[in-house]
């Protein structure tokens, strides 16, 4: 039986509450090579919310795609849009949805919506993946 490259069902996870922690922002800036410019922690990098894709309660949306060990997700496109800036120390709720492409079994998209606790929209994020079949390591 050939394993299905894409998880069999669309999926919604959340809303999940998370805080933007100053130490986490500083660590993200260091790891991303953004130590120049603004002082660490003073500005939330626009890509920072992408780490919530790997939040323990949310990571199934992407991780399931490679759980079988037969495929790996490769990021092919992304988009984020901000309705308002994210702030260090602020709490947010995010929801993650996973979609399949009915016409392409190797395509998968993740959409995340980030809202302030008052319900107002802060940001949306979309990542498109191609699930690449893993072959043998011929160099091994």
């Amino acid at each position: 039986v050939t394993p299905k490259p894409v998880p069999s069902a669309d999926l919604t996870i959340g809303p999940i509450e998370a805080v933007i922690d100053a130490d986490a922002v500083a660590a993200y800036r260091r790891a991303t090579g953004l130590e120049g410019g603004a002082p660490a922690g003073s500005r939330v990098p626009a890509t920072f919310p992408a780490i919530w894709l790997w939040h323990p309660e949310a990571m199934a949306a992407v991780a399931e795609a490679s759980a079988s060990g037969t495929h790996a997700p490769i990021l092919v496109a992304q988009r984020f849009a901000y309705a308002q800036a994210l702030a260090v120390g602020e709490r947010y709720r995010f929801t993650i949805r996973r979609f399949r492409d009915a016409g392409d079994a190797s395509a998968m998209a993740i959409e995340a919506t980030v809202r302030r606790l008052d319900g107002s929209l802060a940001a949306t994020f979309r990542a498109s993946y191609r699930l690449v079949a893993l072959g043998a390591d011929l160099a091994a």
Partner: protein
Amino acid sequence: MSGGGLARKDFASVGDRLAPQRFGPIGAEAVRAFAAVSGDRNPIHVDAAAARRAGLDAPPVHGMQLVALMHEAAAREGAAIRAFSTRFLAPVPVGEAVEVSGRVVKVDQGGADPHAVMRLFLTRGDGSLACVAEAEILIGAGTGSR
């Protein structure tokens, strides 16, 4: 990783250019650090054998790390970015330096929503194109990025 001290611009005219900025080399340690901080532990980024099994010659830098560098390059020059779209055309192997450049390709000053569109390019060490992005930039919003 790259220099600051760039002139801040409002990017309000078609043809306005983002000065080329170099980042890296982005080594294995930096990629492992990004994997740890972001939580994205896809083995193709840190394991040469896993990368080869996916058809890659070498582990690639995380795409989201490249997006962060492109965004930062524009934000450092004062672009107030409200949206950012990226297409990944080719992997950037771990150990390579990259360069980010860009120019404004569209300006809409009319209405209550003046904004510009900047096209950004991320090239690898050999000059080949790895990512193309479009940033929507608020005009008249002051400097700094969302």
